[in-house]
């Protein structure tokens, strides 16, 4: 089974802040769906941004798709092959219509307009949003925006999906629908999620980010004992 991501000993601190990651190590193999959990502010989103080169770690090694990645030029390829769905769809969607938003990635990859529009229809069908092509993205509901932002990334035909809290503030129906879509996709994925039920439906393996490191969580539900 080929290894897609392999990171070791990542350290990261934002300027003038205490370190967020102190020694994070993980591997993602083809076909895996790896869930990452951990408290608010633990550095989960930070880790994902490091994986695609949006942030540069102070120490550590990143091997992606079989090559070590160090500089911006290396990561441009990583970003083409790993699709990153942001925590907040409003940070990702900026075009007037759904079709244009979904076509943005393919156009950046050099497809023609006609080709890109063909991709749009196909990808929207895959996430169950047929007929949303000409809808105004800004006026969609939160759940619909989330599915569109997934479609935007799928349109680039990535080999790996990186999903940052995809069920954040989704209702149960949309969460269930999203689970089905994700389970039907062939790609390996890393999914950040606070939701234990969703993780159980989706993940083949789970890691917990705490005190700057990735650890295998205890088998029992941590939440069981909490609450007032």
């Amino acid at each position, binding site marked *: 089974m080929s290894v897609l991501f392999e990171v070791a000993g990542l350290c990261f601190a934002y300027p003038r802040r205490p370190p967020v990651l102190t020694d994070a190590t993980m591997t993602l193999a083809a076909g895996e769906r790896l869930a990452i959990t951990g408290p608010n502010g633990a550095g989960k989103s930070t880790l994902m941004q490091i994986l695609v080169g949006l942030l540069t770690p102070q120490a550590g090694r990143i091997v992606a798709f079989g090559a070590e990645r160090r500089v911006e030029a290396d990561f441009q390829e990583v970003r083409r092959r790993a699709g990153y769905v942001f925590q907040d769809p409003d940070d990702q969607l900026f*075009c*007037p*219509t759904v079709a244009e938003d979904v076509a943005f990635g393919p156009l950046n990859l050099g497809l023609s307009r006609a080709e890109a529009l063909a991709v749009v229809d196909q990808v929207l069908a895959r996430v169950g949003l047929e007929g949303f092509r000409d809808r*105004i993205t*800004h*006026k969609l509901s939160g759940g619909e925006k989330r599915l569109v932002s997934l479609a935007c990334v799928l349109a680039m035909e990535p080999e790996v999906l990186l999903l940052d809290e995809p069920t954040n503030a989704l209702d149960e129906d949309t969460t269930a629908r999203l689970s089905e879509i994700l389970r039907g996709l062939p790609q390996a994925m890393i999914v950040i999620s606070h939701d234990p039920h969703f993780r159980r439906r989706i993940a083949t393996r789970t890691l917990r980010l705490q005190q700057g490191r990735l650890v295998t969580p205890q088998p029992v539900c941590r939440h069981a004992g909490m609450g007032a």
Partner: protein
Amino acid sequence: MHIVDGALSNAVVLGGGVLAVGGLALGLRSLTLEKIPVAGVLSATFFVAALVHVPLGPSSVHLIMNGLAGLVLGWAAFPALFVGLLLQAVFFGFGGLTVLGVNTVNIALPAVLVWLLCRRGVASADTRVAVLTGFVGGALAIVLTAVQVALVLWLSGDEFLPAAKLVVLAHVPVAVIEGLVCAAAVTLIHRVKPELFGTLAAPARAA
């Protein structure tokens, strides 16, 4: 297009100051305190938009977006763009202090002229008309700004004439880019929130 202190003749600097004060007074007349939040957040957005840089062949240019500012803000573009220029001068060292009036008129007067000429078109129900107007407005504002900069230099001394002509020429491609960016912005606003063109710009007359 920030002119610096010391380049212009006293008469031009004074004239620019007087015109700027007039423009500011007209722009502030319609801005009740109730409308300050809209004007302020939009003004902040235009400040950020001016930090966007676009590649132009082997170099890159920063956007001005005064045409779009005019279409969205109407007369309020005068105070909004003045505030932007003041912050840039004081905290970034772009431009200068005595030329603040001239620089304001150079950027804001074209914005208001574009609004006067294009406000109907941009509010048209027909998207194509609106987008075309957006292109014309965006490009025209840059051409007018370049012409005003040239004029101001030329009025300050004949020795500036060659430079003034070159300023105008050099801004033709910039005007095309600004026109296209403005047209795209108008496309989005037209589909997503067409009221944007009426919030501040329209009632300015009534006040």
